[in-house]
């Protein structure tokens, strides 16, 4: 009894309608999978970027804002942390390491961060991984710059290339620090975090290029000569830093230290635990995600209803076909089974094609996310939970197939031998 063969031949006969139906379902499934995948991948990407940092300290501001401008380069700081406070923080007994971040300059759309060697020594991302230099070395000369993987790749930079930084961030970066060109001394290995999109210079260099810029623009004649700067490198330091990343001796100390920093009297500060602030961020974006999920779910429902429409429409045309099958010995449940099988096959093909489409879209969107947000989005296999949802959709497709199947079942019983047209 080769019923499946019959069902397949019948489907092939109606291939255009069937393929369109599969496509409808595939698109709806792709949307659903994409929303779900992107959500988890973006979250993973954010977590990976801050996983090794216990506290982020900046001037008094909203925690989410501090997290976004310090680590992810989204938005700007309104205030800075004084140099003295930074040094105090670094010297606190609970603190194992402190990485200063002095922002405010750009290079061809990428962030430039003034920092110290602590970055290369102590910064951790992902599974507690340290930064690695793919080529070259960290800061040696005062005007050395270490560039992230994507910066070097996108701008086609090599060790020894000389570059000029721009003053200001975003679209305001119009003025160039052209009197202080930098030499690329190192290129970092890829991390899949915003590090890849960043250029790093030393704090003294950050200070040196801003001498004479105290009013926010260049005061001709007030700048410091590069060689002069090199001689004075040891005494150069910025007046303030944008934020400080802290690693603690023991994680248990994090709550106490956070409170002490937030209550710091000499300066209004905000200390955040990046993981907890991310949770807050997800709570805000959660509503939008929920809406996207509902929309995706509705689209899937529309796809399945489209399939039901096609099956019901063809049911009338196929009444003759069913009477022929019945007269030749097919049992009513076999005819009903053909329709359920059809619905299941269409749904299964739609789901498989949809997942494929989603993975393709993810692969296509990955470079954009990487260059825009520095987020590395892997084309990953959907998680178990998502597969369960997809299985549920397949079940719903089969259940929807029961509607025409039951109608066909009752008709074949009622029609008897007659081929009613």
């Amino acid at each position, binding site marked *: 009894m080769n019923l499946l063969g019959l069902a397949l031949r019948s489907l092939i006969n109606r291939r255009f309608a069937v393929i369109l139906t599969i496509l409808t379902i595939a698109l709806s499934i792709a949307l659903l999978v994409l929303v779900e995948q992107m959500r988890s991948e973006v979250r993973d990407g954010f977590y990976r970027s801050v996983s090794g940092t216990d506290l982020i300290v900046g001037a008094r501001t909203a925690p989410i804002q501090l997290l976004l401008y310090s680590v992810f380069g989204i938005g700007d700081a309104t205030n800075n942390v004084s140099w003295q406070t930074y040094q105090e923080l670094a010297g606190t007994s609970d603190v194992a390491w402190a990485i200063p971040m002095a922002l405010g300059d750009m290079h061809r759309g990428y962030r430039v961060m003034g920092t110290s060697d602590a970055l290369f020594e102590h910064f951790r991302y992902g599974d507690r991984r340290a930064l690695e230099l793919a080529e070259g070395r960290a800061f040696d000369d005062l005007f050395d710059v270490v560039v992230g993987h994507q910066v070097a790749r996108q701008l086609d930079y090599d060790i020894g290339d000389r570059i000029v930084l721009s003053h200001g961030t975003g679209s305001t970066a119009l003025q160039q620090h052209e009197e202080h060109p930098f030499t690329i001394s190192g290129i970092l290995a890829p991390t899949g975090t915003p590090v890849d999109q960043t250029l790093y210079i030393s704090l003294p260099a950050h200070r040196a290029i801003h001498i004479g810029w105290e009013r926010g623009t260049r005061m001709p004649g007030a700048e410091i000569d590069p060689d002069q700067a090199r001689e004075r490198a040891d005494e150069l330091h910025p007046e303030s830093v944008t934020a400080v990343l802290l690693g603690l001796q023991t994680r248990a100390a994090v709550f106490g230290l956070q409170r002490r920093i937030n209550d710091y009297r000499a300066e209004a500060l905000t200390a955040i635990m990046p993981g907890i602030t991310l949770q807050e961020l997800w709570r805000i974006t959660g509503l939008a995600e929920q809406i996207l999920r509902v929309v995706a779910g509705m689209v899937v429902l529309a796809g399945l209803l489209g399939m039901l429409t096609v099956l019901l429409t063809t049911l009338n045309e196929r009444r003759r076909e069913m009477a*022929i099958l019945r007269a030749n010995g097919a049992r009513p449940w076999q005819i009903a089974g053909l329709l359920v099988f059809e619905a299941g096959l269409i749904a299964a093909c739609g789901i498989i094609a949809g997942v494929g489409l989603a993975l393709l879209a993810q692969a296509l969107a990955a470079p954009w996310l990487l260059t825009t947000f520095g987020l590395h989005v892997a084309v990953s296999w959907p998680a178990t939970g998502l597969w369960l949802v997809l299985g549920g959709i397949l079940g719903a497709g089969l259940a929807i197939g029961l509607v025409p199947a039951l109608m066909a079942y009752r008709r074949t019983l009622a029609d008897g031998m007659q081929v009613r047209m």
Partner: protein
Amino acid sequence: MNTNSDLLRIEELRYTWPGESRPVLDIGEFTIGRGERLFLRGPSGSGKSTLLGAIAGLVRPDHGRILFDRTDLGSLSNAARDRFRAEQLGVIFQQFNLLPWLDVRANVTLPCRFSRSRARRAGNVAAAADHLLDAMDLAPELRAKRADELSVGQQQRVAAARALIGKPQLVLADEPTSALDSDRRQAFIELLFSQVEAAGSALLFVSHDPDLARDFDREVSLPTINRAGVAA
């Protein structure tokens, strides 16, 4: 009458369609012998479709018995009647017999997909199909074509081959020639006769056209035996 020689025996059969007040069938006695070629003359509306449905086990009578090979169809479960139909009956409709999206050969072997014993009796199913198509005078080059690419006459011959595959005990033919030109009708009946004989099947041939009745073993008029007297 010798009941043991009857393939089909109908006794006091009454059937009323749901929602109707008058019965469509009320038959005191009706028989078909083994291997008999019976011409049942009935105009449309005389209840012949209902009678064929009852014989095929698709319509369950309100009253009376339908004995097929001494088994009362009314006593069988739905599944058993489906099996009976698949194993023992070949059916030819007036037209639209074939699944348009299947090729000719697959259409002929269709009953063997639903009944193992039918397939067993056919032996090599593909060879049996070819043999029957040969006998029904269908050119070999047509056999791989889709059924809907054939002319009506060719389709009816394919339908006859399908009705006969696996040697069913009874072939039901419901106006199988009405869609054919008059000069093709006699040729079709002759081909059908020879193959029904070769298969050892009985033939119940229903038509409103008395001219076709000539070569049958027996002729019965449905309006005569159907006491329900449905208006023609």
